[in-house]
């Protein structure tokens, strides 16, 4: 009796092995049941490769059934996971081109602590006791900015003093809270994260559509990588910018081959122009801080280097980088997009500017955006100077001793963040994260028109093919729709996975063939799919706990992809970041393949 059979017997299910076509490796199918024997709807069945650095996942249908075709073979972990239940995990020996029936059963948790530990961060941070109603929104804006708060790494019980010290460290990474807020946050965190189990029942809202999907994940980088964005390039490869290590990680999903390219060295110290801040040692080892990417028609990939305030191109054909300085006081080039004329546009968040670069003439233009108020004007004027003063005393975060955000809060900055090109007229649109505005730039005259958003925290928006601007409202857990033709907003609150829990939609992208909006939901380990036709959200639970996604990109065959970008990466389940893709119809194809293999399976059974 092989290990596969043993594992299946241990689960009280039957398993079979058979050869199938040589195009596949291990194929599994079966059912997942709840502890009481009822079918588990929406459970994730994940198959890990033998090296445990890749996994593929499908979701069970209402009858608990699943099927998954993987390229893996050897000693494979197969895991069933569903919210509110303990994982079912077996290790099976799968030969190449094998088809196995593998029924899995979920278990109840042995104790309340186990149940609590399995909950997403959203359950843990929902219990934080806020003394002031407006504190939670600031907390969401500034403390959920780069990572979850409430996952296993961040919810460890700490004393008030230790929380103050942790918060001060976060301020060194540019979390822009007032000192008074910091003290109140420390109190809430000390009281809320007391180590006692949290009770919550999570509902990810399984649908028949969910059971059609398949998720693929490839671990990339290491526990200290900070892969900010991932983009699917024209060559079909996945490019990821490691902001901490000045690397470009390239994955060929066809072969699973991974290449890493080091950005050319700069003359700046570690941390670049932000060397005066208290950047995490081990994570921030470089000086460029590659952040966001966009590709021009000539194949070159354009990268905003946030820490060195440069724009960089990478030619996938020659593997060569070229660097272009962003002139003036530009601080933190952020999101980059390319318009229909191959002009490169990017936001510059910390100095409230927009950059425009023409790759043909190599002409760079930096335009200042409206300051939106006196204190933001002060910031626009003085923030680069304060950072320069800070850089004279590396790693001391001296900025915190000078900046007026320490008594006025993060709204003293405008923070132009996401940017996109309107396909209807070629105009450039941006979102100001802290000033709660979106703006339009006429690409010819550079004239700017701004609109206040009804919800706060507009982060990384995108256009659909009809010129509708879709905007995630990070601070308020919602999705906004803006029609430039009528200048009217509509908005929809993202449903939580349990009452009282909030969501943090960081970025989105619109799949233009269907008009559907794919959006990050970084507080509850899921990805959202919004249908403008029905005005409803669908949830795709992530197979990986501590899922914190940034930009979304689409493959030519319709998969939606992103990078696991929680900071630090070692807080992510598995302790390494990954590229993740959802194929909305991949699970359905696997079911069809498995059904086609059943005759072979049946013959095997009869033998």
């Amino acid at each position, binding site marked *: 009796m092989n290990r596969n059979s043993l594992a299946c017997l241990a689960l009280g299910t039957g398993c079979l092995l058979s050869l199938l076509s040589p195009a596949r490796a291990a194929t599994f199918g079966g059912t997942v049941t709840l502890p009481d024997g009822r079918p588990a709807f929406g459970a994730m069945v994940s198959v890990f490769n033998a090296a445990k650095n890749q996994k593929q996942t499908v979701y069970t249908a209402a009858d608990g059934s699943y099927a998954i075709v993987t390229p893996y073979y050897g000693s494979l972990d197969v895991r069933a996971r569903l919210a509110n239940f303990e994982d079912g995990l077996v290790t099976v020996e799968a030969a190449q081109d094998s088809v196995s029936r593998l029924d899995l059963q979920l278990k109840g948790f042995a104790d309340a602590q186990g149940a609590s530990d399995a909950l997403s961060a959203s359950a843990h941070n929902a219990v934080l006791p806020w003394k002031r109603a407006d504190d939670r929104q600031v907390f969401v804006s500034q403390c959920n900015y780069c990572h979850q708060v409430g996952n296993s790494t961040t919810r460890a019980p700490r004393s008030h003093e230790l929380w103050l010290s942790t918060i001060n460290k976060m301020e060194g990474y540019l979390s822009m809270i007032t000192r008074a807020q910091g003290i109140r946050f420390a109190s809430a965190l000390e009281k809320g994260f007391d180590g006692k189990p949290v009770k919550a029942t999570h509902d990810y809202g399984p649908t028949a559509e969910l059971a059609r999907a398949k998720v693929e994940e490839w671990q990339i980088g290491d526990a200290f990588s900070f892969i900010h964005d991932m983009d699917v390039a024209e060559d079909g490869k996945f490019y990821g910018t490691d902001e901490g290590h000045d690397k470009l990680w390239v994955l060929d999903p066809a072969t699973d081959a991974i290449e890493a390219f080091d950005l050319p060295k700069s003359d700046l110290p570690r941390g670049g122009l932000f060397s005066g801040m208290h950047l995490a040692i081990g994570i921030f080892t470089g000086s460029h801080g590659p952040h966001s990417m966009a590709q021009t028609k000539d194949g070159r990939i354009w990268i905003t280097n946030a820490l060195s305030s440069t724009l960089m191109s990478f030619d996938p054909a020659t593997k060569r980088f070229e660097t272009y300085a962003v002139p003036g*006081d530009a601080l933190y080039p952020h999101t980059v997009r390319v318009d229909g004329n191959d002009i490169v546009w990017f936001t510059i968040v910390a100095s409230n500017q927009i950059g425009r670069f023409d790759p043909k003439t190599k002409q760079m233009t930096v335009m200042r955006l409206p300051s939106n108020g006196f204190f933001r004007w002060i910031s626009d004027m*003085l923030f680069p100077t304060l950072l320069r*003063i800070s850089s004279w005393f590396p790693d001391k975060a001296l900025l915190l001793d000078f900046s007026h955000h320490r008594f006025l809060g993060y709204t003293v900055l405008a923070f132009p963040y996401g940017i996109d090109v309107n396909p209807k007229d070629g105009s450039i649109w941006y979102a100001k994260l802290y000033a709660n505005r979106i703006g339009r730039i006429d690409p010819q005259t550079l004239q700017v028109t701004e609109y206040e958003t009804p919800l706060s925290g507009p982060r990384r928006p995108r256009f659909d093919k009809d010129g509708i601007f879709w905007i995630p409202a990070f601070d308020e857990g919602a999705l906004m729709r803006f029609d430039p033709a009528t200048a009217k907003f509509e908005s929809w609150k993202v449903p939580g996975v349990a009452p009282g829990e909030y969501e943090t939609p960081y970025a989105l992208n619109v799949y233009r063939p269907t008009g559907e909006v794919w959006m990050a939901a970084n507080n509850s380990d899921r990805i959202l799919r919004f249908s403008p036709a029905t005005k409803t959200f669908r949830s795709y639970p992530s197979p990986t706990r501590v899922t914190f996604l940034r930009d979304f990109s689409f493959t030519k065959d319709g998969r939606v992809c992103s990078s696991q970008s929680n900071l630090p990466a070692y807080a992510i389940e598995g302790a390494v970041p990954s590229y993740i893709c959802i194929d909305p119809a991949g699970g359905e194809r696997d079911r069809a393949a498995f059904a086609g293999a059943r005759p072979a399976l049946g013959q095997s059974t009869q033998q």
Partner: protein
Amino acid sequence: MRDAVIAGVRPAAVKAYAVLLLLSAVFMALLGWSASAYYVPAACLLLQALLLWSGRAYGLFKWILVVNQVAGLVLILVLWLGDGLGSLKLDIAGVMLLLNLLCGGPLMAIWGGAMLPALRRGKRLFRWFNPQLA
């Protein structure tokens, strides 16, 4: 006014400016609780309030105001027109900002703009600091 100075009576303008400087020092100290660099202009404003109240150290009082004004002015000009300075722009601006804060910061700059003309020879504050020359 002249008679008051000669008689050693503190003029109303001195009282008013000293109170403004003191209140400014308190305000800056409150900001310093959140951002500790603001304790520096708070201390300077307090020193100036004491010097003005007591009518001592005319030279120090005046030069603090002058340096504050010059640093503030250069800071504004460099930030406004200094793009041609390249990387030096922010270095100069940084030094000027530190100097300005060391000499009382933005509130001192506002009050200094009003006090400096009165510190010229023969003017009210000059006579208060220098009664023997009045």
